[in-house]
């Protein structure tokens, strides 16, 4: 394969894993953000988190893979970008770790006080991640990703991106949840209430998913990726290996979703 083809494929792989993270990981982060609204009281919050818990490991791994592809195929640019966005990545990673810790602690039982603390960690962590993404994406879209971005673009992007994460989480909740949290999620997505139309939840989720998928693609469209790809000897091995693996990864994920999804009126995983 020629270097140009390999570069294009490398960009496609990076985009694929990033989009996978925004659609899948964005749903559980969004649901974490609206947890206090959907779940009033410990039992309802447990119901809401139960919809996230079997999948979050499989969801967040898309970003880990995306970062791996970024390091492997565009190492020099990855360094420049991560160094430039250092002060945005610190809260992003912190929020991510705090959210995950909250989910694990919530599952490990304990007192009512520990549950409230864990729920707080999930919500606080999810918000921190979503707001940081807003700042990071504004930096990528603003044209100077090698340095920290400020100004009106950030002021606009941060709340808008966070709102999209939350909307995606609500739409996911309207499909996955049951009971009172489900009714609240439906009401917020405009599918509930007395005038609510049947069969509106899934199209809404499809809509937010498309918006989430578009987010990193639009923000990252101007990044000089292809021209900063690694040289032929590595790319010629790495890209085919990644291409062979990708269908297997997708199959594993499809299996996970088929095996563990399905709605229930009571918590099943925690």
């Amino acid at each position, binding site marked *: 394969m020629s270097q140009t083809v390999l570069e294009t494929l490398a960009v496609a792989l990076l985009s694929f894993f990033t989009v996978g993270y925004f659609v899948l990981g964005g749903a559980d982060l969004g649901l974490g953000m609206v947890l206090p609204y959907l779940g009033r009281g410990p039992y309802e919050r447990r119901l809401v988190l139960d919809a996230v818990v079997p999948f979050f490991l499989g969801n967040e791994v898309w970003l880990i893979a995306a970062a*791996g592809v970024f390091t*492997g195929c565009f*190492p*020099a640019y990855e*360094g420049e970008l991560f*160094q430039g966005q250092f002060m945005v990545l*610190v809260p992003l990673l912190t929020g991510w770790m705090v959210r995950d810790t909250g989910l694990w602690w919530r599952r*490990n039982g304990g007192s009512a006080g520990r549950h409230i603390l864990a729920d707080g960690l999930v919500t606080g962590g999810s918000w921190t991640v979503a707001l940081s993404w807003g700042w990071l994406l504004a930096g990528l879209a603003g044209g100077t990703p090698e340095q920290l971005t400020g100004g009106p673009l950030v002021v606009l992007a941060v709340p808008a991106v966070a709102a999209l994460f939350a909307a995606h989480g609500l739409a996911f909740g309207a499909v996955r949840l049951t009971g009172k949290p489900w009714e609240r999620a439906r009401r917020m997505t405009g599918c509930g209430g007395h005038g609510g139309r049947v069969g509106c939840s899934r199209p809404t989720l499809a809509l937010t998913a498309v918006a989430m998928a578009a987010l990193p693609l639009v923000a990252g469209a101007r990044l000089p990726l292809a021209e900063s*790809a690694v040289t032929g000897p590595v790319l010629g091995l790495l890209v085919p290996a990644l291409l062979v693996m990708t269908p297997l990864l997708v199959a594993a994920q499809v299996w996970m979703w088929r095996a563990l999804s399905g709605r229930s009126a009571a*918590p099943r995983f925690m």
Partner: protein
Amino acid sequence: MCVDPETLDLARWQFALTAGGHFLFVALTLGLAGVVACIQTCAVVSGASVHQRMVRFWGQLYVVNYAVGIVTGIVMEFQFGMAWSGLGHYAGGLFGASLAMETVVAFFIESTFLGMWIFGWNRFNKWVHLGLLWVVTLTAYMSAYWILITNGFLNNPVGYRSSSSGSSGSSHGSGIELADTLAVLTNPSALLAFFHILGGALLTAAVFMAGVSAYHLFRRSPEHELFRKSLRTGVFTSVPALFLTAAVGGVQLGSLSGIQPMKAAVFAGKESTIARLQAELAAQFGPGDYVPSTALTRGGAVVMLAVFALLLYVCLPGAVLACFRKAVYRFRAWHVLLMVMVPLPYVAMTAGWVFREAGRQPWVVQGLLKTEDAVSQLSAGEMRTSLAVFGTLFTLLVTVNWWLLLRTAARGPDDPALGRDERDSATDGATGGDADGGPGGGPDDGARRPVWSL
């Protein structure tokens, strides 16, 4: 290019603390994965209740430990680009590829299957459920292999050639690129470290199992059969694990003078060799200090070897004692000794890493790139913020999760969260008004799947 020396120090501290903190969990995870997979294989084949309860008890500890390993690993992956961007610039053409393979080929599958193993406990056929854990175990080892390919290259760069354009077309300055894939993938510095760590991880898990079981036998737990079997598994595993670790470690030490003569000289304390190497390196690479810290290099190695000796004196007689049922149940002084030993493999492994990594200084890529040239162009203030945030977070995580791990271990095998069938307990916990599913929400389809109740 000159970076604030304080930024360099802070970045090194951050890497040392996060890598060290991460590895505390990796060590037990890697070892326990294989052991739990073997126990579950026994459980599926024999169908014995004691084996099934062992899977849930040790599996629960494995999961608690694994969770922190994953959370701390997130920082590790991003840290290379954030704090050490010079590494990507110079060696990215080689160095990044193995990290990419680790995430896509190994960790992606590992994480997805781990989720299915934990949360699909009563939803899969028992053979499928067992297969899930074996996939998690094998991909975990594969993950370790790819990480050590990266680390092995830093210690013993092979299979590269210099490229005038650096690792990427548009990059500035010179760099290296891949010349011989096979040499990189069979780098002795990576393969030996892989087997050394495999042995060390198994030893960590074996000593942990023996110690926790000894605690319950010491307290005369009613679950004596489960803990007798577990104590024996731990003690009998510790001996071959110890010998594998020591044998590969010996080979590594032997090959050191060829790969990293300065590290070997500092370890051996040969002042004349150190002075000669320092003069040679200064002549080759320009003036500078090419001698790594003696305290860290030698200290790390000595602590590692001393702990190995201690473990040997306890594990060898232990393997004999464990053959006698009476000793397993009644020898209380031995129980205490086994409990006290639990931290030792962690000490040895951390010390070993300090020896390996500190002994390579001032190089980040041995003989090719200095650590000070790899650090990112960040202000000391930025680095201080990130060290404070990640340092605090890691300290909290490590502390709270060790407390959680020990508490879970002390509580014993009475209905751990792992493998509990929530569908049984949850139905009576449901309060009114929760039964109305949505239009798409059919009945719980999990109930129709084969159930393997432990």
